[in-house]
């Protein structure tokens, strides 16, 4: 059972829990604005060169992108289930769901790896290194700059998420959590859903405009 001690400067567990949650929502706000900058760049260039985006997006693999979307949605679902199981004192199932979530994240990264290596092979690289002659529009390299930066930053978040989920999984296994204290699991869950959320927008904006 839980051996969690409430930090001395809090009056009770509820206050500590609510504080952590508010803090984490604020953190997610800063994450949204971090990615927001990239979306602003995307919107600006898309409004300037709509045809280029149309043409360049055709080079992305819709099947891989779509499959990855499904993988992330499934992982979001298993994450929610994992948190739910921790809250209901069911660590065994919780560990299972968290492990599946990590597996989904890994699948996502593997597919991403194949996508990236294919693009790199073709020369569809960020603007300064771009050397592909299948697209006529002169600004097409910008699309791939945005593609790599946006999906790259998202990919980093996936990797960080995998680390965090592994961490809470180990703690669940050790029996750190119960229906009285599960804050870290819930917060990691929120983080993971945000990673999913960003991909939900990245997918149509990158893959589905060709």
């Amino acid at each position, binding site marked *: 059972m839980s051996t969690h001690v409430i930090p001395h400067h809090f009056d009770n567990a509820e206050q500590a829990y609510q504080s952590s949650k508010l803090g984490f929502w604020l953190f997610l706000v800063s994450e949204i604005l971090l990615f927001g900058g990239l979306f*602003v760049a995307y*919107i600006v260039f898309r409004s300037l060169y709509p045809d280029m985006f149309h043409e360049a997006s055709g080079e992305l693999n*819709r099947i891989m992108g779509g499959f990855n979307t499904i993988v992330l949605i499934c992982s979001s*679902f298993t994450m929610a289930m994992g948190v739910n199981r921790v809250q209901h004192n069911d660590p065994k199932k919780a560990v299972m769901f968290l492990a599946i979530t990590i597996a989904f994240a890994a699948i996502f990264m593997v597919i991403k790896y194949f996508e990236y290596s294919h693009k790199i092979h073709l020369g569809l690289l960020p603007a300064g290194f771009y050397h592909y002659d299948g697209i006529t529009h002169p600004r097409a390299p910008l699309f791939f700059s945005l593609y790599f930066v946006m999906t790259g930053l998202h990919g980093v978040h996936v990797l960080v998420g995998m680390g965090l989920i592994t961490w809470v999984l180990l703690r669940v296994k050790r029996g750190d959590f119960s229906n009285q204290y599960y804050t870290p699991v819930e917060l990691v869950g929120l983080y993971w*859903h945000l990673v999913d959320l960003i991909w939900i927008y990245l997918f*149509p904006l990158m893959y589905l*405009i060709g």
Partner: protein
Amino acid sequence: MSDHKHDHRKTYLNVWFILMALTVITVVAASINFGKINLFIAMAIASVKASLVILYFMHLKGDATLNQVVFLSAFGFLAVFVLLTLSDVIARPPVAPVVVTKIQGITGNQGVVMARLRNSTPEQIQKGKAIYMAQCATCHGENADGLGPAAVAFNPKPRDFKSGYWKLGGEPSRVYHTVENGMPGTPMPAFKGLTPEDRWAVVHFIRSFSPNTPADTRATLALIGLKPDGTPQSVSTEKVIPELPVDFIIEQIVKENP
């Protein structure tokens, strides 16, 4: 610990199912060409999916009002960022071709330049020597004695700068004025083709030979448009350059960064 009493598993399953269905729908919709509406359809579906994730997976529905306000404010500020940036990007006038005008030497704050150049420096004298040899020596002589090869044909004879005598006056600004405008009624031409810098260089060079070099006076300063104390009239009344002398600036930059 607010909501762990409820079991959300069924909700999660439903949400998961709807999300999967919407993913399929958005892929199918994208492959049909609706024209410009395609983007709106894709964004609408994405927003529905995002809302489901936020409301049910992240439990923003039923969370504290403060947390709801906090999270949604992110999107509000993001909208400000997007809209005000777009107010620039989509409304920029087309770029007009830059008009490049060749401007001889330094212009613009001419008075300021004049005020600075009228004091002799060794560099100026050095520079003036080269210009003198090219432009003046034929008549005034290589030794500044008025005995250049062409001098024989002239009447009156070219000035011997070593004599200490100045026909119109030996003040720097007066000599400058003479170089610029020539001496009507004599063979001395107006060197308007030289830049102000070059003219000043010549002035300082030839004055370096003379035993009689009076200082500027109120009247001679006025000749070249300076105030009695030798400072420029006033910045605000100076001529403003209507167009950017691009090549002049490029020249300067190249000079400073060899």
